[in-house]
């Protein structure tokens, strides 16, 4: 992974900022794979984290993080490292205060299942903060690829694996049983010198396997056609090409009695008619 990737850093910053928005502190944190290196590096003491558990499915990734531990000045934080699968969290229930996942969950096969596991790992009133890539991501690349395939091959086949739509995010949070779910979206448009630079960037972010279905390798001619068409359709005046990355931020809490809840249906004590009578009709 390329160090100090500004797009990934921007997303990690956004995610970590949300810890500041909460009044409480989160002594124990679980950081799930994806961009966990960026999250740790940019933590900067936010959230009052004292114990950090870093988890990724890749042993190499964990090793990299462990080896660079001294470069990240988090001396006050007790860090531990696990190689594990977010679909089978090796954690006790109600053991962490916050679960952070920065651009990792869109890789997961069983996303709803993983999110349920995250919720269970949280202590009551614990928070889940996740950032995933949304459906608008790389729309320019998908368009160029589709057009290229139609012109060169006469048909299209899916090349980019499905990404969550914003409307799905809310459902995911509720299905996982999170209280007070929140979803918001940010679009980042990154400029590249050429379509090739984009592909190289995706490779270094480790996204190519997730985004480009491997069994449908793009043949060389169609790849060439894609690059040419991307340039012609989307290039700016200065020759750079834009690529959209849509990031969906999801927040959810493990239920706790202190949290406000929607009232039970039928428990209203005042009717709209009464309110209308009191304040008069019309505007």
């Amino acid at each position, binding site marked *: 992974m390329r160090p100090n990737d500004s797009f990934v850093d921007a997303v990690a910053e956004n995610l970590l900022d949300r810890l500041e928005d909460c009044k409480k502190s989160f002594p124990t944190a679980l950081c799930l794979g994806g961009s966990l290196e960026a999250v740790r590096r940019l933590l900067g003491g936010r959230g009052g984290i004292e114990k950090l558990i870093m988890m990724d499915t890749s042993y190499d990734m964990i090793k990299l993080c462990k080896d660079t531990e001294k470069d990240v000045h988090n001396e006050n934080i007790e860090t531990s490292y696990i190689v594990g699968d977010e679909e089978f969290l090796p954690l006790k229930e109600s053991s962490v205060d916050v679960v952070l996942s920065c651009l990792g969950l869109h890789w997961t096969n069983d996303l709803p299942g993983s999110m349920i596991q995250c919720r269970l790992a949280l202590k009551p009133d614990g928070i889940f903060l996740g950032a995933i890539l949304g459906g608008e991501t790389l729309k320019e690349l998908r368009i160029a690829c589709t057009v290229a395939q139609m012109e060169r091959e006469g048909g299209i086949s899916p090349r980019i694996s499905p990404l969550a739509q914003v409307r799905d995010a809310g459902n995911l949070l509720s299905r996982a049983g999170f209280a007070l779910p929140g979803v918001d979206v940010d679009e980042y448009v990154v400029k590249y010198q050429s379509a090739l630079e984009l*592909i190289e960037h995706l490779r270094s972010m480790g996204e190519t396997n997730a985004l480009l279905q491997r069994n449908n390798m793009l043949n060389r001619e169609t790849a060439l056609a894609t*690059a040419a068409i991307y340039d012609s359709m989307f290039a700016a005046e200065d020759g750079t090409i834009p690529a959209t990355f849509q990031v969906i931020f999801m927040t959810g809490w493990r239920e706790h009695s202190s949290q406000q809840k929607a009232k039970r249906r039928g428990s209203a004590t005042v009717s709209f008619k009464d309110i209308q009578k009191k304040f008069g009709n019309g505007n």
Partner: protein
Amino acid sequence: MKERNSTSTLKRILVNCSAQVKEYGGCVAAKVPEVERDMCLKEFLALKTCMLKTLQGKV
């Protein structure tokens, strides 16, 4: 291995054949959203010729 070479090979082609790339890309972009198979075949063949020359010349 195909994977290892693919990006830098593609790069060489795009640099060497930039004129043909522009011609082909421009042809397709002008017709979008009406896209039919081989509608820019002539331009693509010019690009392909240049691509093969590039690969033969350097490989």
